[in-house]
């Protein structure tokens, strides 16, 4: 399969981040077209394209926009660029190579819901990327493409950046809104949802969309929903940026239509595994998704929302962390639970206490000081964190424990004193890297 560029298009064009270069290559044509259209038509095109949210949940974007009540005078568009999931580095590349494409998509979305302003919330570490965006916004404003009466229309919309300060939880949309309001970045009780009066930014109806999601929008407006749906599968149309990291020869961002297999992505495009080793496990959605025990069958899974769900894992944000046969999955569980312990905002008891105790017990297992019952204990604690917290972080934090124990029990047992541990690597259907191709 050839790489198909929708989101990363034009990466090879020098200085694409500059306004004049972007405009010369068709930039802002979609916005000009959009502001001449009735807002309902834009929402309908995006609905018809079945564009799904790229932050991980895959919620239909057009439907999200349609939830905004039209009769409310003040509405907001918020762009989620908190990109903090372990293994995710796609939004950063979009902003670094083509910031105007994001701004254009965000303003089209803002026009569709008649938002008063766009706030782009970036994780605090994206200090340089925020400066690039600020420059791009200032240039676009000077050219009349954002700001008052943009593109000669009677629609006005300012675009601002806002830097976070190091908190994974602010990628959760209601925590993000709290953070933007100058409060602690902790999730809110829903309902009201952000789209409802009382639930969004400053209590006003608000759409929160991921960077990658909005970056699709100019292409969809220019080319239409039917063209968009020619890429990918029926339930997962379009292209996706797959962030491939860990044990591969060529880590990086790869954009393909949904439906490329894990095998082709990893073995062909990401260059296979260093030293020709076998793949033991894959985290397909960063630290938060269920880990996969790799078999030939798993490697042939198509990367779509629906096919990945059938394996018992998820596509999520498609942050694919590859681990070779030498990796001890107890160590992986330990790394990931330390992440979630650090990032739990502390609001809900099961997540705050659960991550703390899971980390302690996993440390004990790693130190070969545990008993068999400790393995059952961590599974039990993790299960009791699921579905009982205000946001998904509690569920995310439980996943690395539940699924590593379930898929790699021998890796945990080998650390237990006196247990007749099976060798960690003796998996019956261990995948041998197949020849690249197809």
């Amino acid at each position: 399969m050839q790489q198909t560029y929708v989101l990363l298009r034009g990466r090879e064009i020098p200085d694409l981040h500059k306004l004049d270069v972007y405009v010369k290559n068709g930039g802002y044509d979609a916005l000009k077209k959009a502001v001449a259209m009735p807002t309902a038509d834009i929402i309908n095109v995006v609905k018809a394209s079945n564009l799904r949210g790229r932050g991980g949940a895959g919620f239909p974007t057009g439907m999200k926009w349609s939830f905004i009540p039209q009769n409310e005078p003040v509405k907001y568009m918020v762009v989620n660029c908190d990109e903090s999931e372990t293994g995710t580095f796609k939004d950063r590349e979009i902003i670094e190579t083509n910031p105007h494409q994001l701004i254009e998509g965000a303003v089209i979305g803002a026009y569709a819901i008649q938002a008063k302003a766009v706030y782009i919330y970036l994780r605090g570490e994206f200090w340089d990327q925020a400066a690039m965006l600020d420059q791009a916004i200032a240039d676009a404003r000077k050219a009349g493409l954002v700001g008052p009466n943009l593109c000669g229309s009677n629609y006005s919309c300012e675009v601002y950046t806002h830097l976070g300060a190091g908190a994974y939880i602010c990628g959760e949309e209601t925590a993000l809104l709290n953070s933007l309001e100058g409060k602690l970045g902790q999730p809110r009780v829903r309902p009201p949802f952000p789209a409802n009066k009382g639930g969004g930014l400053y209590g006003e109806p608000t759409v929160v969309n991921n960077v990658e999601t909005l970056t699709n929008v100019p292409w969809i407006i220019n080319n239409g929903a039917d063209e968009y749906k020619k890429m990918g599968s029926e339930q997962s149309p379009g292209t996706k940026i797959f962030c491939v990291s860990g044990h591969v020869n060529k880590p990086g961002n790869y954009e393909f239509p949904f439906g490329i297999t894990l095998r082709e992505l990893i073995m062909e495009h990401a260059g296979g595994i260093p030293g020709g080793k076998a793949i033991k496990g894959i985290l397909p959605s960063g630290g938060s998704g269920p880990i996969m025990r790799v078999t030939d069958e798993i490697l042939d899974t198509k990367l779509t929302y629906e096919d990945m769900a059938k394996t018992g894992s998820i596509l999520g944000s498609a942050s694919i962390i590859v681990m070779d046969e030498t990796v001890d999955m107890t160590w992986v569980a330990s790394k990931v639970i330390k992440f979630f312990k650090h990032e739990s905002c502390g609001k809900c008891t099961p997540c705050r206490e659960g991550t703390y105790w899971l980390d302690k017990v996993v440390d004990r297992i790693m130190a070969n000081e545990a008993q068999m019952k400790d393995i059952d204990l961590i599974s039990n604690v993790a299960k009791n964190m699921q579905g009982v917290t205000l946001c998904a972080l509690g569920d995310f934090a439980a996943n690395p424990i539940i699924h590593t124990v379930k898929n790699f029990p021998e890796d945990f047992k080998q650390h237990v004193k006196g247990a007749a541990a099976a060798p960690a690597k003796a998996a019956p259907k261990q995948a041998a890297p197949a020849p690249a191709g197809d």
Partner: protein
Amino acid sequence: MGILEKYGDRIQHHVSKYPDKRSAVMPLLYVVQDEYGWVTPDGIDEVAAILDMDPTQVKSIAGFYTMYSEQPKGKYWLQVCTDLACALRGADKFHEDLKAELGVEEGGTTEDGMFTVEHVMCLAACDKAPMLQCNFHFYEKLDMDKMKALLAEWRAEAAKTST
């Protein structure tokens, strides 16, 4: 001179972005950190006065987010990502080697006040590991040779600005 006098334009720019000025608390805490090197109690009081907030509220924000330091740091604040994706590509060893090179423990600062070293969670640069953030700028695809060259560069830069 306080931050309002020294950074009036920058502060005004941030306050004007939002319908509720409380939203400017995060950008203003960065101003405090830029001016004093860390988020000082006086800096918290200044932000509270500018935004009509209670200093306790401002302090709670500073405490919640990891990029605000509530204690003095070295001139160069080195934050090494040791999260899973980076660790699979040698970040743990790189972090240990860096601490050994500078003779500091985790979170410690060199005696000359130049470098603070700590490990942090994912910085969205997993394809370019090992990497670190120094005073909020990324340095990627590192090894100890490149790191030693960077340390020398920063030492020279500091010597130049202090004379």
